[in-house]
């Protein structure tokens, strides 16, 4: 870090100026607007009417979707956390335990390959190919002489939420595998040798050595999954549009409908602010109670 001369300082300001202007305009201004506009009731282009906290009050007390959609969001997020903290980790461990680098590379590439398909296409493929009347699931059931079990998985209120959860089976995302793999590779050889000298191998090594040493990676995935699960609704928008009824509605989706279908911009902003506060709370809790490996090492 050096302290530049005056002329060079002016250069510094000039260089960071464009990014700063964009940031203030397209990130900070919308953040401020989110809070301020949530106090108004208005349509796009219409007259705004100041209503104070009425939007918040209406959402939390009168809106029929409020609590069911929060429950859906929690269920979906918890399920995502459970599968993303375990399955990709097991796969990464299996890949990492292979002795030949060629195979390790091959499997990493294979698991990463599906990211070339756009997310929208993935959702549409699942909707049209796995869950549709002539899709994989129902064809399979007919083939197994279980025709009475076939039904519209996404349109039946009893199975819709579960069907939405199962999208992406077997839940081994290339990113997660790579990140866990990076953590496993970073474990020093000395630790691995010491473990094997002490007779700590296999499953017991996995739980006692590997997991504590890749806590930073687990924490990153946990954080990203929780944030993504609480705010994400594109998949649901494509698959079910929140139906049948409100069975697969989440608060983010309801915000979208309020803004762009019912033209209630202020109300939508209020839902956005509430979601932000919930996500912020979860993030802070995560940082507070889930210490990373570096911290634990630093304390001991």
């Amino acid at each position, binding site marked *: 870090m050096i302290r530049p001369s005056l002329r060079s300082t002016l250069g510094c300001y000039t260089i960071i100026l464009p*990014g700063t202007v964009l940031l203030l305009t397209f990130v900070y201004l919308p953040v401020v607007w989110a809070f301020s506009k949530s106090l108004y009731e208005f349509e796009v282009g219409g007259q705004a009417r100041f209503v104070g906290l009425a939007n918040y009050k209406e959402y939390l007390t009168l809106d029929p979707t409020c609590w069911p959609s929060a429950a859906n969001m929690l269920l979906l997020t918890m399920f995502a956390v459970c599968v993303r903290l375990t399955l990709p980790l097991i796969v990464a461990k299996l890949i990492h335990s292979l002795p030949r680098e060629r195979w390790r590379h091959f499997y990493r590439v294979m698991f990463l390959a599906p990211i070339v398909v*756009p997310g929208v296409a993935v959702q549409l493929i699942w909707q049209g190919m796995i869950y549709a009347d002539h899709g994989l699931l129902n064809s399979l059931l007919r083939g197994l002489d279980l025709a009475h079990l076939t039904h519209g998985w996404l349109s039946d209120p009893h199975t819709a939420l579960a069907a939405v959860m199962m999208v992406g089976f077997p839940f081994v995302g290339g990113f997660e595998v790579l990140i866990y793999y990076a953590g496993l590779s970073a474990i020093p050889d000395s630790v691995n040798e010491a473990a094997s000298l002490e007779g700590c191998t296999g499953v017991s090594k996995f739980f006692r050595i590997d997991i504590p040493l890749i806590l930073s990676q687990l924490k990153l995935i946990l954080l990203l999954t929780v944030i993504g699960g609480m705010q994400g609704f594109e998949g649901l928008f494509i698959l079910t549009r929140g139906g049948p009824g409100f069975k697969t509605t989440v608060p983010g989706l309801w915000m979208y409908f309020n803004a762009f279908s019912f033209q209630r911009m202020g109300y939508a902003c209020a839902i956005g602010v509430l979601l932000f506060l919930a996500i912020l709370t979860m993030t802070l809790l995560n940082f507070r109670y889930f210490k990373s490996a570096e911290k634990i090492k630093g304390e001991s």
Partner: protein
Amino acid sequence: MPRWKLLAIHATLITITSMTLLPLAFMVNNIFRSNHEFYRSFFSIPDAFKGLVGVTGALAGGDKGPVEVDDQEGRTQRVPPAEAAGMYLQQIKRGPTMAWAVLRPYLINSLVVSVLTALGVCAMGSSAAYILSRYRFMGSRVALMMFLATMMFPGVLTLVPSFLLVKRLGLLNTYWAMILPYMAGGQVFAIFIFYSFFKGLPEDLFESARLDGAGHFRLYWNIVLPLSKPVFSVVIIMNILGTWNNFLWPFITNTDGSHHVISSGLFALATSAHAQNFSTMFAAYAISSVPLLILFVYATRPFIRGMTSGAFKA
């Protein structure tokens, strides 16, 4: 490691990989099958492929007798082998041709938006990170904090107000409605990655160049850029992936549908009359994956290296 254990690991990994890739395999296979075939059975080798092989065999054997071919509507016709071959080829080409006609403008829009965004993010992100990591001046720490603090704000908070902003600026149905917000948001992650990398570069490198009278631009161009190619590849790939997959924002800001990108265009396609034709849809999914597939083939190695470098933890 004992041999049976190695085999068990390979078997497990192969099974999981196949399950992950299965929907994509079905997708590719179904490009060449008509709706009737799809309704008859979920999976089989496309009739057109089987037919072509049969016809070629018949022609090679000098057999000129008429062949039975199912046409578009599933009616069986008896035609000479040469004509049958033409019908089969037609059937194979039909899905991709129709999908391509619809997707071509979307693909161009996607390319324009993602390339311009990636360029802007790299230029702004790396230069700002260079300044903020190597110099200390009034406001430098505040500026860094201001950039990184935006990671706190989830997209769901700013979605609606951003739309109101873009509308007020008169940018709806333009490329700028996508490029400017993408650059504003994307540079933050870029600065985060570049900052920690530039911070680790030794000061001596810069010192001697500075004594020679090199300015900001020369330092950045001659010293920083050549050293940080792997970091650039991670930032570029993550950025392009993000832009390519973003569906909601282009969907909202293209009120008249004139600037649809691949993602929003696919959704528009799925809600149009074309969706009645499965082969068109499957071809559309496949075509929309091709550009990233090309990127993937060229960039996997540096990307895996970058991702494995240990920057990704919390």
